[in-house]
Each structure stands twice: as C-alpha cells, then as structure tokens.
C-alpha cells in the first residue's frame, strides 16, 4: 500500500511519519493529480514518487507542466484533483507540516533585489518562524557553504546570475528542509555556473540525505544513476532509473529515449526544447 493510499484513507496525516517505517514514506508522492486552466489541461492524472535521499530529474519540454506541478506542490495553486504528500503530510490537508519540510527554488528569481544577501535570508527565516539569533547563525553557515560569505552585506542586485541562483538555493536550505524542489534552476547561466550548481545540489543528496526533485529540459543535467520522470504535455510518459527508461524505449541514450517517448525531433546533445 502506498503512502498516498493511506492518506486518502482519511488517516490523521500529522501522525503518519511517526507511525510508518521511515523507508516506506516517499519524500514526495504525487497521486492522480490533474490540473486545468479553464479548458486547457496542464496536468492529466499524473503520479510518481520521489524516494528519500535521492536525486530525481523531472524532464520535460517547455510547456510540459513542470511549473504547474511545482505550484501545486508548494500550494501556490489549489489541488483540483488528486493527492500530493511530502513525507506523508498531505499538502492540501496539513500544509503547514508539509511546507515546513520543503525547500523550493522557483524558475523566476524570487529574491528581493533591494535587500542585502543576509537580509533576504533573515526574511526567509522569519517566514519560517526561526528566531533572529538562530537565523543569523544559519545564514552564516549556508553562505559559507555556497561560497558567498564575502557577499553577505552586498545588495542582491549587485550579484551575478549564478550567485543569485546559489543564494536562492542557500535560502531554500535555511530552514533545513528534507525535500528540495528546483525548477529550471540553471536557466540563463553559463556552463561553469550550471555545473557548480548541479554539483552542489548533488552533494546535498549524498552528504546530507536531502531528497531533490530537479526539473529541467536539458539532457546533460541528468546523470546515469538518477531517477527520471519524463513529463510531456501534462502526462508522465516514463519513470524509473535512467538506464531502465533508456532500455525500455530501446534507445541508446537519454536523448534518443526522450525522442522516442515524445516523438520530438531534438538533435542529440541539444536541450529537449
């Protein structure tokens, strides 16, 4: 029985993590989720899970429904149909408990450009009820970890694109979440900045046991050992280990596997869109 089945059975979601075996609870469970904007269907009955302490890539073209899914997980949009659980906490019924475990980096920049790096972090900490002294300590920690300690007092407006992205990741980690969502986090960055950010996020998985859902349309950001979910026109077309997905489609690499699944004509080595 899946954790989401237990949620829909009407149990008290707040008690679930203490009653279930930790290994049984997915970091993220999406079950039968559909979403429409008027007559346009953005997501159609999708379902998948993200295992604890795993790096899961959500691959899809622009318009696949990735950002809509992120908005549903973070409760920016109401869930029209289906269930979303974060470590067993139903997002619709226990949003406080669910969102407390979640760190998120959205596709558009969400930093306050007129505030300093530290002020942005302190504001985020306050929104999670973290007391000022603790927040300052955590800010120093995360800034040191992402190599922005020397820019703590700088206005965000003065940072480079890569630095802003790293700061957004640091901010998402400030309240020590167990699941991190990143929506096209490397868009607009140069090759080195992209690699730095991707490496840093992968380290979070291996060193801190954080679960990561990495939404992207770039094939080269997906590793051979990653879990993969292919989202296309609002439907999940494939999910599993990358090697398994490639084998199931009869392709030679992720590029050809994606093309066979979606019927798209992207050239090898190029982005999916």
């Amino acid at each position, binding site marked *: 029985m899946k954790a989401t089945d237990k949620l829909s059975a009407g149990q008290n979601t*707040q008690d679930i*993590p*203490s009653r279930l075996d*930790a*290994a049984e*609870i997915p970091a993220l469970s999406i079950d039968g989720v559909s979403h429409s*904007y*008027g007559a346009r269907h*953005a997501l159609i009955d999708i379902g998948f899970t993200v295992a*604890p*302490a795993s790096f899961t890539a959500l691959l*899809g073209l*622009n318009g696949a*429904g*990735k*950002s809509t899914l992120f*908005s549903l997980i*973070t*409760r*920016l*949009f*109401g*869930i029209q149909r289906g269930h979303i659980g974060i470590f067993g*906490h139903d997002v*619709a019924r*226990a949003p*406080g*408990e669910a*969102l*407390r*475990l*979640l760190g*998120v980096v*959205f*596709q*558009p*920049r*969400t*930093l*306050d450009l*007129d*505030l300093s790096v530290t*002020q942005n972090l*302190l*504001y985020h*900490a*306050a*929104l*999670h*009820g973290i*007391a*000022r002294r603790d927040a300052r300590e955590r800010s120093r920690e995360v800034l040191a970890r992402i190599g922005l300690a020397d820019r703590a007092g700088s206005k965000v407006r003065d940072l480079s694109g890569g630095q802003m992205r790293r700061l957004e990741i640091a901010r998402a980690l400030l309240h020590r979440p*167990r699941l991190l969502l990143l*929506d096209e986090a490397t868009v607009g960055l140069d090759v080195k900045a992209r690699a730095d950010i991707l490496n840093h996020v992968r380290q979070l998985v*291996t*060193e*801190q*046991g*954080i*679960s990561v859902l990495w939404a992207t349309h770039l094939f080269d950001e997906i590793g051979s050992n990653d879990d993969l979910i292919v989202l296309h026109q609002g439907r999940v077309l494939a999910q599993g280990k990358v090697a398994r997905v490639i084998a199931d489609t009869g392709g030679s690499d992720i590029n050809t596997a994606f093309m066979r699944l979606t019927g798209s004509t992207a050239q090898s080595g190029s982005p999916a869109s």
Partner: protein
Amino acid sequence: MTSATIRPIRSGFSLAEYFTCLSGIVWREALRFLHQRERFISALVRPLVWLFIFAAGFRQVLGLSIIPPYETYILYEVYIAPGLMAMIQLFNGMQSSLSMVYDREMGNMRTLLVSPLPRWFLLSCKLLAGTAVSLLQVYAFLLIAWFWDIAPPPAGYLTVLPALILSGLMLGALGMLISSGIKQLENFAGVMNFVIFPMFFASSALYPLWRILESSPMLYYVCQFNPFTHAVELIRFALYGQVNWIALAVVGGCTIVFMVGAIYAYDPSRGLIRRGPAGGET
C-alpha cells in the same frame, strides 16, 4: 548516505514562531520603505500640496459653520487635515497593493506564500506592516502641519492613533483585495481612476457632508456609502478625543469584510481569480 534521517515533525506553530514571522514581515516592509526615499517624500508632498496650495485658495471661498467635533469656527486647513491624513493612508494602502502585484509578477510573493505558517496570518502580517508604514507617514505629516498652525489638542495625537490603525487596516485590506484581482501591473492605472480618486473626492475629506447635500443630494448619499468618508470622520473625531460611533462601526465592519475577502481571494483552493502560470513558466 542512502536514506534520510527521519526526525519527528511538530504540528502547528508556537506563539514565538508567529511573533518572529510578524516582526520579520514588518521589518522587511520598513526596510523597503526606507530604501524607497522618493516614496516617503511623495507620500508627504501630496497632502502638503493640498494643504498649502489648495486649502489656502479655498479658505477665502468656503465658509464653514460650526459642526462636531469642532466647537468653534475653524480654518479650512484645519477642516481638511483629517481628510489628508486619511488620503495618506488611502494612497499607502493602494501602494501596498501595487507592491503586492509587483511582487507577484516578479516572483517575490512566492517567498511569502510558500511559508508554512497559515496564509491568513501571513496576509494579516502584511496588512499590519503596511499600516505601520502609513502611521509613520501620517505622523510626519502632522509634524509639518503643526508648523502651519494645524494643532489639535496635544492628547489628540494619542487619541487619533487607534483610529489611524483601524482606518489603515481598512484601506490596506481594500488594497489587498484589489491586488488579488489584478493580473498585470499595467492594469493598476485603473485603480487610480476607479478607486482612489472616486473614494477621495466623493467623501467628506474636502467638504462637509451638509454642503454636499445642499448642492447634490445624490452625491451626498454616494458619500454616505463611501467607507472612506467614515474613515475620515473617525480620524476627525478621534483627533479631538471623541468617538464617532457610526464611523467606527462602518470602518470596523468594512475592515473585516475586505480582510475576509482578501484572504479568500488569496486562498489557493478557493481564489476568486482563475490563476495560470506566471509568464515564461510552464
């Protein structure tokens, strides 16, 4: 490491966490306000222009009879001062609304809305923060007005505070409600034409209601239904240590209605507006 360490999750939030969140939001609004010096200056210049230029001209034209809460004849400048205080709060409420629309377009709003604390509480904090900023502006205006011989009783500076808080909350909540229905920043110009100007001019801010009744009974009833009129009267009476109970009831009631509406509109599961993804997202 292959599995996450599961630590027990607390349900609910402590009072200290709520307070930390409130103080953080107020702190951020204050920082933003201080960074935008031109916003502070324009917030002061607007009512001062009305006071120094408009009122000076009208003083000779417009006679005022003795009406409560005044106990003697007063200068026109003295009469319009409460209206200008409310005008500061009206513009501030709409400015907060504009900044919410901007934050939503730029993405900053998401930082607030994905906080785990209840959304009604987050929006209430935002409202309180905006009201606190409007109080700074109003008291700065009162300080300058004092040099222009607009000097209410000394106790009035204190007794007006609760009225200013309540009217600030009402106008801020109205701005928040409006912001929930505006999808693009460009549409905000309509707010100026359809909300701010009608609310200000169809009220007792510039002329006493009895004068409006003499010239246009229909406009008089429009003014009576305008919550801004009651905010002005609440402030006017409070400035002289009195309570206008009808104004208090209307402003209090409207605050609740606007706030409930704003919370409803920002609720992801019940919002008034049909939301789509932000530009460039999928």
